[in-house]
């Protein structure tokens, strides 16, 4: 492995924090969904790096699972966002603070 494992973890951590900030700070539902995707991918990078480091396949298998889950999540999430936008005409998460 050419790249040191520590660097991989650092990259994954940075990406995760970026995604987190995106989720917490942005005022747009689509950008929040993107932030969640970035956080998932940061976890995936860490898993791939670990699988290389210990020469084990489980990490890469898990990454495939994460990709599948992320795809499902995006489709459901986008559908919800489209529905919410149709109902209220807005994408600001703070506009949806009521039940019902």
């Amino acid at each position, binding site marked *: 492995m050419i790249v040191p494992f520590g660097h991989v973890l650092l990259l994954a951590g940075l990406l995760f924090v970026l995604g*987190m900030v995106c*989720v*917490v*700070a942005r005022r747009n539902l689509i950008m*929040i969904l993107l932030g969640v995707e970035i956080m998932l991918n940061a976890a995936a990078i860490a898993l791939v790096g670990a699988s290389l480091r210990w020469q084990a396949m489980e990490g890469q298998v898990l990454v495939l699972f994460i990709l599948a889950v992320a795809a499902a999540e995006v489709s459901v999430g986008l559908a919800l966002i489209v529905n919410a936008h149709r109902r209220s005409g807005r994408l600001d*998460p*703070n506009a*949806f*603070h*009521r*039940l019902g």
Partner: protein
Amino acid sequence: MDPILLAALTATLTPLAAFGAIVLATRRRPGLSAGLAIGAVALALAGALFLLARLWGLEMSVTYTTRWMASGSLEIVCGFLLDPLSVLMLTVVTAVCLLVQVYSLGYMAGDPGFARYYAFMSLFAWAMASLTVAPTLLQLYVFWELVGVSSYLLIGFWYAKFSASQAGKKAFVMTRLGDVAFFLGLLLVLTHLGHVEITRLNAGAAAGLSGHRLTVAALLIFGGIVGKSAQFPLLTWLPDAMEGPTPVSALLHSATMVAAGVYLLARLLPFFSLAPTALTVILAVGTLSMLLASTMALVSRDIKQVWAFSTISQLGFMLMGLAAGGYVAGVFHLTTHAGFKALLFLCSGVLIHHHGTNDIVDLSRRGARRQTLAVACLAVAAAALAGLPPLSGFFSKELLLAALAAHPNPVWLAAGLLGAFLTAYYAFRLIFLLLAPPAGGMEDAPAPHHDAPPGVRGAMAAPLVVLAGVTLLLGWAEKPLARFLAAGGGLTPTAAGHHAWLPFTAVGLAVAGVALAWWEFGRRQAPRVGFAERWPALGELFAQRWYLDHLYRLALGALVDHGAAHLCAQGDRRVIDPTVDGLAAGTVAGGRRLAVWHAGRFQARLLALFLVVAALAVTVFF
């Protein structure tokens, strides 16, 4: 069972049984209720007489006690204390109760509350009879309160009448004031001595209290006596208590209720005599009450109120005598007073019942003098009240004055003699007012209250005759009674210096009082104006009862309405209301603030979640 115990149980518990039976079963049958009550009190009298006869022979005291409650080292007993004093008082109480209840058959005939009346009378008889034989102060206190309750019920018997229910309340509350003091004194004795047994207190156990504490305890207990016996400054409830039916007044004024106070003092006299300061206070209060009440009686036009004031003054006189060390004198006067005061009220009741008015002048105008028996008995009783020989009042008053004469301070004797003069004057003022034909001639008697059937009249006449006989004869029992009382009381009668001049002075003053009353009210062409009324200011002062009631009303207004009530209102408005309102407003505002976190701001929640996880990670890994 021991016959003495059986008799004591009979004498005290049968009226309670009658009360229970009337309340539970025979409420709707007035005749049967009256029969039950009278039968019960007659049984009680029989028991009391049996006890008197037995103890007369034995000349000792008998005590039956059983444990009532125990707490730690504290043990309180209940039972019977039968000594000459209590048995004599028990006899007087049951006898007067019996006579009054028989009399009420006539007086209360046709009253819608007839059965209720007899139930209350039985309750009253039970409470007072049990009070006399109580061996501990605590038991005495219980019945003391019961006496207060039953007199409240009877004074306010005609509760639909506003003044009657007010008078009942006044009597209850004012005596309660004294009772609170009594209870505090009782607790003081109990906490410092660990018991409240009367015989032990009298036998000198109270010497275990330090001087000041003893004086305070004695004065507190005397507070109860002041309330119960309507002494200064709590004397204003008794004249108002006239709102009750007249037989109730007779009972209240002679043997029960007010007599309870004097009885308590006599009961605890050895205990009180350990506190000379308290005795001086008692002397002063008794004297003040006696003179105040006598002056009030000088100008009253209400026949019952005159006797009510005379009760206050005679009770004050008894307190004076007892406090001066005249144990036998005080108790003897209590006994004779019970007889002639009951007679006075019952005779007045006959007149009031027949003519339907309390006003002396009205009674006279409506021909009260035609009721020969009642007026004759009234005159006998008034003469006894005035202390004319050979009636019972003469003997007991003479004993009391002798006791006062033995006291080193001559002021008390002088006050007593002045009181005797005033008493004779106001008693005979009333008699002469009743007897003398009024200036305007006699009205044709208006239709009397209602025509009484002969049986009713007999029921009202018989007690009068009996009581008049007692008033005539009881005086001769002075010597044996004194010996009897001294035997059980543990008190040797103080060897009063024999003052040969004293009886003559006393009788002379009484005769002078009668003569003055005759001069002003009795003779033909009498001015029919009393000497007190010649000075309008003085007459007004006496008629308004020295403005005591006004003073109390003002004080109550200042203290309660403008003082405590105002303070409470201010506290409520300024402190409690803002606090409660602030609490509520704060809760609402805090809720609003916190509710923000509950609104669906998921980004904020996510941030919190992340921060918490990060903090957890930091603490776990580093």
